[in-house]
């Protein structure tokens, strides 16, 4: 049940919003749609890249057995969280089946097509909020996938196809920067993007944790180098990494870079910093203050991340550490969603009764 009086929390928040920008009154539903729009588009981009890179990586292996293929693709499915669904629909995990499943199957909520459709559907709910150009990019992506001829994609230039999907996301981000006002809506868009990005980087590193060597100082073989090369490319980090570490691809340095880089915009640390900043802005909380317990906990998580070292991570276990990152991200996403984007559904029966009673009382009064 809602009350007409606003809480101190929201008054505070409204004052803060008023200072920043006069125009903003944002429906919770709209905030939610902006968030999911942005998050789903970011996801489609990451999945497209992950598929493309892994497809190309296989080419380095030369001829491969079915078992190798499976070992190669199953972690990709696991990173998307859709391993079970896949094996309900397909008998074997090979390039074609995984790529079809992760690109075109609408039964798979994490396929590229599902993510693009969902991004567009959310955008449709907030057509009045986003610029025409932003909408058009999402609509183009939707029409592109709807009309895509799968056969010719497999036979033709597969990478060009995934490049196109990534380009929609890049254009959208560029247009968000250049055509979307820096208001509350912008923060929800960014929040969705960075949550998703941090999540995917963590999952992509997690795919390969099992090929990490036992000691930080050990050096692997050529195939391992190719694998880590692919990991970097999966998050478009190859060039940035090289500039930082000058050419040499050392497994632990890759992991360290993707987890802790302060400057690379897809590293976990960078994304978590952004998420934290956005949570503070969305909440209207002063630095060092938190709106609720969940947000305080996330602040603490950021501190831990800032001061963590790779040795500590190794002691704890990389997989465990990454799982911890994922659960903290999920917790803060839920927290912000519940606090700002979600209102419980209206109880129509109770509402109807209430207003009918009020009307009767008024009539008696008159």
């Amino acid at each position, binding site marked *: 049940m*809602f*009350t*007409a009086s*606003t*809480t101190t*929390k*929201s*008054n505070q*928040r*409204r004052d803060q*919003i008023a200072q920043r920008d*006069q*125009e903003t*009154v*944002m*429906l*919770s*539903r*709209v*905030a939610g749609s902006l968030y999911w729009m942005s998050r789903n588009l970011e996801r489609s981009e990451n999945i497209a890249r992950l598929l493309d890179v892994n497809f190309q990586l296989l080419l380095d292996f030369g001829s491969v057995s079915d078992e190798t293929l499976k070992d190669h693709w199953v972690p990709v499915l696991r990173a998307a969280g859709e391993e079970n669904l896949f094996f309900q629909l397909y008998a074997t995990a090979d390039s074609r089946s995984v790529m079809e499943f992760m690109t075109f199957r609408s039964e798979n909520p994490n396929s590229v097509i599902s993510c693009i459709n969902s991004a567009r*559907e959310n955008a*449709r*709910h907030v*057509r*009045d*909020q986003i610029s*025409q150009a932003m*909408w*058009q990019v999402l*609509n*183009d992506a939707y*029409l592109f996938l709807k009309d895509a001829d799968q056969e010719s994609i497999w036979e033709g230039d597969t990478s060009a196809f995934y490049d196109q999907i990534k380009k929609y996301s890049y254009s959208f981000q560029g247009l968000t920067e250049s055509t979307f006002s820096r208001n*509350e809506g912008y923060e929800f868009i960014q929040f969705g993007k960075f949550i998703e990005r941090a999540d995917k980087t963590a999952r992509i590193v997690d795919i390969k944790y099992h090929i990490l060597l036992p000691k930080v100082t050990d050096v692997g073989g050529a195939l391992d180098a190719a694998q880590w090369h692919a990991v970097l490319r999966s998050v478009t980090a190859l060039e940035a990494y090289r500039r930082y570490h000058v050419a040499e691809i050392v497994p632990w340095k890759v992991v360290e870079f993707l987890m802790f880089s302060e400057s690379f915009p897809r590293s976990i640390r960078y994304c978590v910093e952004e998420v934290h900043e956005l949570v503070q802005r*969305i909440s209207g909380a002063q630095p060092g203050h938190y709106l609720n317990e969940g947000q305080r906990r996330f602040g603490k998580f950021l501190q831990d991340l800032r001061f963590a070292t790779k040795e500590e991570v190794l002691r704890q276990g990389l997989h465990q550490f990454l799982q911890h990152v994922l659960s903290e991200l999920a917790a803060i996403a839920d927290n912000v969603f519940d606090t*700002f*984007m979600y*209102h419980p*559904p*209206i109880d*129509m029966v109770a*509402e*109807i009764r*209430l*207003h*009918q009673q*009020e*009307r009767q009382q*008024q009539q008696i009064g008159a």
Partner: protein
Amino acid sequence: MLLKDYETGDFFDEMFTADGNVRPHYRRVAEEFGDITREEYRNKQAAVELSFMRGGVTFTVYNDSQGTERIFPFDCVPRVIPVEEWEVLEKGLIQRITALNLFLHDIYHEQKILKDKVIPAHYVLSAKHFRREFMNFSVPKNIYAHICGTDLIRDKGGSYLVLEDNLRCPSGASYMLENRSALKRAFPDIFSAGVRPVEGYPQALLKGMQHVAPANFAGDDHPNVVLLTPGVYNSAYFEHAFLARQMGIPIVEGRDLVVRDFKVYMRTTAGLVRVDVIYRRIDDDFIDPSVFRPDSILGVPGLVNAARAGNVCLANSIGTGVADDKVMYYFVPKIIKYYLGEDPILNNVDTFLASEASDKSYILDNLAKLVVKSANEAGGYGMLMGPWAAQEEIEEFRKNIIANPRNFIAQPPISLSRHPTWCEEGFEGRHIDLRPYILYGEKITVTPGGLTRVALRKGSLVVNSSQGGGSKDTWVLHNKA
């Protein structure tokens, strides 16, 4: 050369006179489309359609599980209205909406027009959209129909006639605006003809909404105006989002609003925020389940209470549908005379009421020659086109008319004017109508032009988008041709 073999047929043609000369106000348009090649035209047409598809200028097809979105077919040849004709139309429309508004005020208050027996009282009291709940309630600034879309047609002699008034939630204004911008992109040169702009519509609409806000509105500098939509699955959702964006106001669904203490609030990220004016695109029946249909999940319980308490203004008002009941249409000339003491500037189509004994027998005897319409249907539904109908269909209507005469009117079929329209290989004449948009705010304004709808099927007189209709950009020229 494509207009060379164009045939006007036995109809009033908008572009050509009966002896084949281009009417002066079409000179620039006829030059352009007379010179164009098939290929050029097709390329331009394809570019326009692509831009509509990409821009999502679409409507949702109902009863289609795929949620298919289609574009509203657009024909590039603009319909041109000479300024001297427009001035008459404008006056006639303002006269009509003024009288209808006075009528609405009257029937929800003293009901003088009924007491004076200008209109038999039972017609009003039995009207489906007459809302007793709003008796003796004064709407802000006494404006009932803030937005009105009146359908006009031209007969064989070229005279404009009113076909129907839409005073509930008339749609299509977004297509008027999108059509203009599409044509400007596709054929920029033809605008040298000097065309009056339509782009002021959203701003004028917003001003009209702000005009009717409660005096002690809750917004900071200006009233909080929102657009209430049934949601993204409504066929007109594109238009709702489009207009909200153009006006810079939030688009809300029923579930975003809640009524407390007779005040309406929207549920925002910063808690509940008061709403002053609602441009609602949900019909009366669905708008408040605590008063009207209790099964509506689109509406907002308590909205009627809040409106009655004067804490929120709904545009259009609840209960305006009584004035666009097709039986009431018959009385509009009398309504104009009664309230304004003037003769109507725009005439009605001759109309017979099935509920009047003499008219009824005429209708039943001549079903095969008449167009029969249900009193409260829209979108070209519930209609019998006698001369083109199958015998069973006629008999079906006969039964229904006898069973419920109040629900039917009949009119002689009007041979709508035609307009050169692209048809596969070249230009052919197709029937058109015109829906201008009238805004009742501080004063009454009519956006110059409106939406011209065109029946794309050969010989068809039905222009509705749901039944094979398309649309055209509609021009009113700055100067006399």
